[in-house]
């Protein structure tokens, strides 16, 4: 069965392993993810100024293009999901804005496309039982913390994916694929990425912004990674390329500040799903080229055959 899919820019570049693993795992369950025609960047961050209608143009154009394929679109990057879902929510509840933006982009759209996260798709469409029956590799030895971050869950009124304070959907998906899911208290805490994208973390940059500001970023990540390590986890699984970058890149700095800090690989949940389903692990960028903390040793430990 074919279903519309919006990969997003990061998934075609830095997070290519995320993209490939989502497409391939969906195929195992009998779904062909078809790229939305003529897709562009979604805008990456949902614009909070009420009158900035221009920022709605890219996401609404993407949804209008997705409408050509059906009335639902799957996306998987937390940032894209957040932007598409909130833009959709905005025009569904504000007919004036909808009219203005469709007039500007010169396309028809009436808000009737559902934006679905791949986690949601795995839960509601594929089903945990189907995942379990397709498992080819045993991931029981892998102790994983599910990390949700901010964009996947908030604001709840607009997103409504899961409880914004105590989410479980990623826990359940990881559990269904056979991982040992490790509970920890910082699942939905900010990793600090909005500080890291606007802070120059090179040595010169650190000097310019001041050590205190630069450290603020790595401290956000430290709180999460330290709690994960204390809970006994081997790695972190998530769905946000920005969180992955931030949690990953911060670890060198954290190591310098916090004596005894144990580095931990960060991966996308779908990369683990691909391993569990017995797919070729070399295809999903689980290497030092795409990660600061190399996940390949952990991957090899569970994917011997």
């Amino acid at each position, binding site marked *: 069965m074919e279903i519309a899919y919006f990969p997003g820019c990061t998934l*075609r570049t830095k997070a290519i392993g995320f993209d490939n693993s989502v497409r391939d795992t969906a195929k195992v369950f009998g779904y062909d993810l078809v790229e939305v025609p003529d897709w*562009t960047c979604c805008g990456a961050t949902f614009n909070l100024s009420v009158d900035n209608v221009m920022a709605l143009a890219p996401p609404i154009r993407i949804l209008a293009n997705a409408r050509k394929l059906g009335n639902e679109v799957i996306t998987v990057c937390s940032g894209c999901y957040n932007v598409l879902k909130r833009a959709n929510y905005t025009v569904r509840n504000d007919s004036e804005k909808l009219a203005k933006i469709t007039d500007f982009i010169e396309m028809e759209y009436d808000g009737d496309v559902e934006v679905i996260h791949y986690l949601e798709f795995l839960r509601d469409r594929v089903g945990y039982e189907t995942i379990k029956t397709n498992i080819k590799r045993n991931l029981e030895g892998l102790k994983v913390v599910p990390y949700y971050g901010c964009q996947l869950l908030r604001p709840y009124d607009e997103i409504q994916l899961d409880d914004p304070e105590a989410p479980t959907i990623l826990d359940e998906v990881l559990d269904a694929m056979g991982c040992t899911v490790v509970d920890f208290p910082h699942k939905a805490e900010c990793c600090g990425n909005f500080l890291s994208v606007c802070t120059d973390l090179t040595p010169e940059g650190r000097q310019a912004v001041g050590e205190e500001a630069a450290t603020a970023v790595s401290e956000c990540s430290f709180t999460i990674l330290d709690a994960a390590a204390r809970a006994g986890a081997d790695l972190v699984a998530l769905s946000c390329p920005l969180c992955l970058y931030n949690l990953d890149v911060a670890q060198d700095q954290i190591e310098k500040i916090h004596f005894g800090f144990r580095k931990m690989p960060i991966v996308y949940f779908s990369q683990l799903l691909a391993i569990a389903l017995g797919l070729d692990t070399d295809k999903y960028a689980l290497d030092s080229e795409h990660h600061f903390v190399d996940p390949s040793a952990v991957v090899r430990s569970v994917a011997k055959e």
Partner: protein
Amino acid sequence: MAEKKASKRSKKGSKASGQASLGSTAVAEPRTEMVRIYIMGKQYEVPKGLTIQKALEYAGMRLLRGCGCRGGFCGACGTVYRTEGDYKLKVALACQTVVEDGMYLTQIPFYPANKATYDLEKLTPSLEAIVENYPEVMRCVQCNTCRKVCPQDLEVMQYIAAAMRGDIARLADLSFDCIMCGLCASRCPGELVQYYIAILGRRLYGKYMMPKAKHLAERLEEIEQGKFDQEIEELMKMSKEDLKRLYDSRDIEPEEELGEALRVGEIND
């Protein structure tokens, strides 16, 4: 506006009839239908059917810039215009578009576009190469204005979207027919220079990604080994007449081979 035109004609007409009344047999000379256009806000009457470029010349302009090949390929004569009663801004190449009545014309012969200097040898066909040389590419908000003003009807915003995700092949492909008229840059709220970003993409594609032409490499090798040296030397010594004779009696490529070449061309397209 039709009335005004008619009144002018009747004035001319009355003059002609005046002559006729003098007893001569003069027939009214065939009159060219005229249209009104506005060049930089000033009204001119020009014959219907002229291109914008010819109309400018008819109106007395001498085109030193903003005019090149006159055949729709060079992109020098980018024009922005609007017609009476319509808010839409439209674009055209002056050499390719016929004047309409009530056209307000603005020529864009040059646009002060930002152009990066780079050493292609030191770049890789990647997002990094684009962003290093044109960091403003990330200012694209995807308003699609560039697409709306492209006289070549290219998917400008789409190729910029491809650039923003490092898809150099798509950037090169979608921008292939760009004639670099500059109209996209003139309207871009993000101050991007789409056509320079695109030519960087095509250069990267051509140098690093396009399959190499095997036959060309083989021929270059043959030239370097001196396979054709003797032949060239003989040609250099020939008289003009002998050269002409030789040219006229040359082997013309058999049709079969030509057909083959065309088919290969199609596949490459």
